[in-house]
């Protein structure tokens, strides 16, 4: 089987490649690419003129909810949503019920993800850092690593005890296992449900101060610096956090960090009159934070963009703001948001955009993804993006079961239109069928 992606703009940050050319896939693997490749005979061909051909997007941070949260999302619906969002590899977070703290659960997820009904993309489980994600005792991390987790994390229930975290880092250094940290001092954020600021004061909602995030970035950064353990900061939301990560990198700490689309586009003012679609953790901040996060993206302080896909069932969201869960369903809007609000504003070039959403996240966790170099990944993972396509995001028509999107009704320019992971796994209804041709026998 020979598949040709012809005459597109190839954007592959793993080889600093930005050229008009073609990509040849044989039996599910990239075999050749570039300006002057021989197209030769083929079984199927995609005319990519005007489109970007990029390595499939890689998400460091998604919640698939299964097991235990099937009313919110399943591995099937979540991987389908990811494929529709242009992702070919996603990391799923361990805060399921039960939490992902045993090898058998890792197997369960990998099995489900590779079943024919699922989205046809790779799922990379992230293990729980502590037993039951309770922040007290270390989990069986060696067993989890052998079962195939790429990193460990206690996600939204972060370890509060610094000595537990220090020992975790020492142990993970030995295992060469990165720790992904959500930075929140739970004493400072207790009871809070949005950014502590003028809007929370006006609405009479308890606020979460920015120091709740900054203090934990500082603590975790210091521990990473002193232990040498690789630490990845998840979903930065504050300008102070960006400055601290910058400083830790300067000091040589083995840290990386991500930002998520909502923190680059939305502020606490969007909460408006108690709209629970805009409730998330860490909370949406301010325009100043957006400015510094954008700078951090541009200057490389922020390594990656992750979706933080957090789907919820409708009934969970139709409650008073304080009772609503924190999180947003984002896999299918992520690239549209970034292309429209980051790339189009020249914060990132097209190549850098793909780096932040594919190559860099793959490198952070050492995943077989994020590159079109022949043989580099076990299976060809690529996405075709139409950078000029204007579309309106409709949260009611998503593959994800989570309809809790802050972007419902937003217009975007640029969309993933076809996702390929060994074979075609998603074709958008806006993909022009004339671009595809099967060779006649």
């Amino acid at each position, binding site marked *: 089987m020979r598949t040709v992606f012809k005459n597109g703009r190839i954007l592959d940050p793993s080889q600093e490649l930005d050229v008009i050319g073609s990509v040849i896939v044989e039996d599910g693997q990239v075999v050749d690419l570039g300006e002057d490749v021989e197209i030769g005979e083929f079984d199927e061909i995609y005319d990519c003129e005007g489109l970007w051909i990029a390595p499939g997007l890689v998400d460091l941070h998604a919640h698939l909810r299964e097991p235990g949260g099937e009313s919110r999302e399943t591995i099937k619906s979540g991987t389908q949503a990811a494929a529709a969002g242009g992702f070919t590899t996603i990391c799923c977070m361990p805060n399921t019920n039960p939490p992902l703290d045993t090898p058998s659960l890792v197997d369960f997820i990998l099995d489900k993800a590779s079943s024919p009904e699922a989205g046809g993309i790779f799922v990379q489980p992230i293990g729980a850092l502590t037993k039951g994600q309770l922040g007290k005792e270390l989990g069986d991390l060696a067993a989890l690593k052998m079962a195939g987790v790429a990193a460990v994390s206690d996600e939204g229930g972060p370890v509060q005890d610094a000595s537990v975290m220090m020992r975790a880092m020492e142990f993970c250094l030995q295992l060469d296992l990165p720790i992904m940290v959500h930075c929140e001092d739970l004493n400072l954020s207790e009871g809070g449900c949005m950014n*502590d*600021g*003028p*809007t*929370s*004061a*006006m*609405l*009479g*909602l*308890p*606020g979460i*101060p920015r120091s709740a995030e900054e203090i934990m970035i500082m603590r975790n950064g210091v521990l990473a610096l002193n232990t040498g353990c690789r630490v990845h900061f998840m979903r930065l939301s504050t300008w102070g956090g960006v400055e601290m990560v910058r400083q830790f990198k300067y000091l040589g700490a083995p840290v990386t960090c991500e930002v998520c689309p909502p923190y680059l586009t939305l502020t606490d003012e969007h909460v408006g*009159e*108690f709209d629970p679609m805009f409730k998330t953790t860490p909370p949406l901040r301010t325009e100043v934070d957006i400015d510094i996060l954008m700078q951090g993206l541009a200057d490389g302080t922020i390594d990656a963009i992750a979706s933080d896909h957090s789907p919820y069932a409708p*009934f969970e969201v*139709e*409650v*008073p*703001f*304080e*009772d609503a869960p924190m999180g947003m369903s984002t896999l299918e809007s992520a690239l549209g948001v970034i292309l429209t609000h980051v790339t189009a504003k020249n914060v990132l070039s097209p190549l850098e955009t793909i780096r932040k959403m594919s190559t860099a996240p793959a490198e952070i966790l050492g995943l077989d993804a994020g590159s079109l170099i022949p043989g580099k990944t076990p299976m060809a993972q690529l996405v075709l993006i139409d950078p000029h396509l204007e579309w309106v995001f409709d949260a009611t028509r998503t593959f994800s079961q989570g309809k809790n999107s802050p972007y419902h009704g937003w217009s975007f320019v640029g969309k993933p239109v076809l996702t390929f992971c060994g074979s075609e796994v998603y074709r958008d209804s806006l993909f022009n069928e004339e671009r595809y041709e099967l060779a006649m026998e």
Partner: protein
Amino acid sequence: MDAGQIQELLSLAARLKDDILHDRKVSAGRRRTIGLLFFENSTRTRVSFEQACNYLDFRIVNFAGSGSSMNKGESLKDTILTLKHERLEAVVMRHRSSGSAQLGQGYFGGPLINAGDGQHEHPTQALGDALTVLERKGRLDGLKIAIVGDVMHSRVARSNAWLFSKLGSEVRFVGPRTLMPSSMGLLPGEVHYDLRTGISGADVVMCLRLQKERMTDGRLSSIGEFRRLYQVNRATLKWAKDDAIVMHPGPMNRGVELDDMTADGPKSVISEQVSNGVFVRTAVLKWIFEDGGAN
């Protein structure tokens, strides 16, 4: 609500008060069925709405949060939808969560009166307070209103600030930093951490209830500390205008927010606030039906 609507309501309340005090019948039109939906404990507000319904000859359906289907895990949405389909014509709701009134209104469709939602708003309290000040001062425009105490957790503070500022008063928030939101920029009022400057020259000193919780959540060390810095009493009241009036939305902690002598003294209008609470609630209930159910 804009200033015009508030004034309309206040003059309706004044008229109804006059009628009620002179034993003239105020009910008119159909007997409506009103649901009193109190998810959070309340005595004065609930009784005052009941009394308002009595004057208007409306029927009341009482629904308390405890002992109801909410205890069986029913959501606010389903509770409200049930009441709607049981054909209640208006609902008066108190709920512990900020924003719950707006959410409930969306599901109910018809008139829903907010009787206090979390720390957000308590509009009928503010209307009663405004009527009280209006009776005593003859105007609201240009008055200096100092709201003193736990501003952070007070829906009364927020509703009063909005209402009085819309009608031309100058609002000040006075309280300790631990009980004042860090950014007050979207609320209409000047912030003071010092009682003396806060109430200096004030026409109205409005105390807020201090909850005992504030001592356990680390925001205040003791009642004594609060009393030392923020109690409105004979000595501190001298900083306000000579003819200043003192208010409290209740329930009051005697000897904490106010000393006994001030609470019961000639400057106190606390009992008038309670009576006027009934009259403004009568006005609101009458108005929503006569005005086609506008909220």
